[in-house]
């Protein structure tokens, strides 16, 4: 059986800057895979390439064996890639429920009517927002907006879920809740790729991870081994978050 996601020598540059430099990796089904690296190393760009927000200059990305690189973002979403954004992006004119509904109407799930409302309510409960369906998202705290965004992403029942620093900006108690939530999603059998600066979370959650630096892969493998690697430590030197 083919990997859930496979990335082969993918490259993306912005003018002279090579943000992703011939990166290759594979993520197995059901795996919780970490993508780490110092600021500006190309992590978000990599997620943008997978989700189709950006098109790679070279290389290939496959979802369960089928090529998705080159497709428009909405087609990739329909094939089963969902994401959250580094700076939370909710739909400001709507309440929490409609924000979540947005994820389940246009993908392969294609729900409408009572079923859709029910799913949104269920997912809001899953992320810890039971009973908050009709709160306008703009009236919510940052972490609650992040929860809404996460619920919207899983509403499409994605094959692969991309999280871009979903835990960033949470206080310690929120962080514990957030880690538990991601763990629960993973236990449901979802394939998740998470970009994260919070190393504790990577250690707790991920089996394998990949370290990027200046667009290149500098190390990939089991988390414990990767995080103690001298080159990885060096790459992170001077980066406060490490």
């Amino acid at each position, binding site marked *: 059986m083919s990997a859930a996601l496979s990335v082969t020598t993918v490259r993306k540059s912005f003018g002279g800057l090579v943000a992703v430099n011939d990166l290759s990796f594979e993520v197995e089904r059901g795996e919780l895979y970490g993508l780490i690296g110092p600021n500006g190393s190309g992590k978000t760009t990599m997620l943008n390439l997978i989700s189709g927000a950006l098109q790679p200059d070279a290389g290939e990305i496959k979802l369960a064996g089928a090529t998705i690189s080159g497709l428009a973002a909405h*087609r990739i979403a329909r094939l089963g890639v969902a994401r959250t954004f580094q700076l939370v992006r909710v739909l400001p004119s709507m309440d929490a429920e409609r924000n979540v509904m947005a994820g389940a*109407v246009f993908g392969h799930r294609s729900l409408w009517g009572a079923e859709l409302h029910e799913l949104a309510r269920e997912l809001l409960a899953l992320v810890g927002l039971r009973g908050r369906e009709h709160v306008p998202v703009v009236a919510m705290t940052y972490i609650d907006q992040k929860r809404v965004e996460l619920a919207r992403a899983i509403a499409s029942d994605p094959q692969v879920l991309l999280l871009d620093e979903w835990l960033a900006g949470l206080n310690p108690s929120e962080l514990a809740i957030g880690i538990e939530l991601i763990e629960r999603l993973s236990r449901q059998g979802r394939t998740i790729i998470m970009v994260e600066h919070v190393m504790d979370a990577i250690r707790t959650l991920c089996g394998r991870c990949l370290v990027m630096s200046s667009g290149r892969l500098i190390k990939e493998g089991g988390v414990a081994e990767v995080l103690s690697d001298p080159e990885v430590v060096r790459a992170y030197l001077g980066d406060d978050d490490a």
Partner: protein
Amino acid sequence: MTRFLPDEFRIPAIGAGVIVLAALLPLFDDGFYLAMAVNIVLYAALCTAWALFSGPTHYISLATAAFFGLGTYAVALGNELLPFPLLVALGAAIAAVLAGFVGAATLRISGVYFVIFTLGLAELVRQIVSWAQVKWSTRMGLYVFTDFTEAHIYWMLLALTAAVFLTGWLINRSRLGFAMQIIGNDEAVARHCGIDTARLKIILFMISGAFIGMAGAIVAPRYLYVAPPSAFNPTISFLVVIMALLGGTRWLWGPLVGVIPFTIVMEFVSANFPNDTSIVIGIVFLVIVYVLPDGVTGRLEQLLARMRRTSTASKAATVKEAA
């Protein structure tokens, strides 16, 4: 308690009542007031159709005159060949096709270019029609002879307005409407939710253009004599934008709030200051953009929200005191 109608049908029911009442007008007057009512209903249809697309997408289209003029010309050219309803449908189809091409060519580019492109397009269509008319006919205009009275035109426009509102109401309840709302909030999020944003915008632009084309077809008999400068008059495009923005485009009935007072004032201005009409339009436009960026309905909404906030705040305070 059993209610006569479920909530969601209350607004269309009210709308239907208003339309029926409005339809009685020609029984009472067939002069000044009917003429004014024709203008109001015409712009109600045009502005609401325009806002079907421009409201949710925030793209300002100045192609209204092109769609409108094509509808007018469908009637002017086909009047002796085909039955009138067929010509109206033809006007809608031609306008929709043009909207489809414009959409495919421009909706991927940013909003500013879209405005300029649509303005240029309307002018181009007008020039092409003028050129073709000079080349293939000896006259600069076309005569449109029908048996329609002003009242007939009024009723047809009223029916068109009802159709536009019904369409808008149905869209708002559909996946398409939900998708447009998401696109209006955040286009990137919309795409990652699986929405084909470009395609939906084109579909909506075509629907909007089709209705505008129909309006142009229906009023064609009113002109008697159709020529490019009147059928493709760019003022139509600008007036539609001004009235729709004056009313506000967040709600389906928003543009109507702009159309009614504006048409009445314009009637007054053009009767009393016929030479300064454009100056007045210009000033009104500035005032709207400056004082009412979200239109009258947007302003009302803000005021309501503020009132609700203060009332819940005072309620909360009372609860706290009680506890």
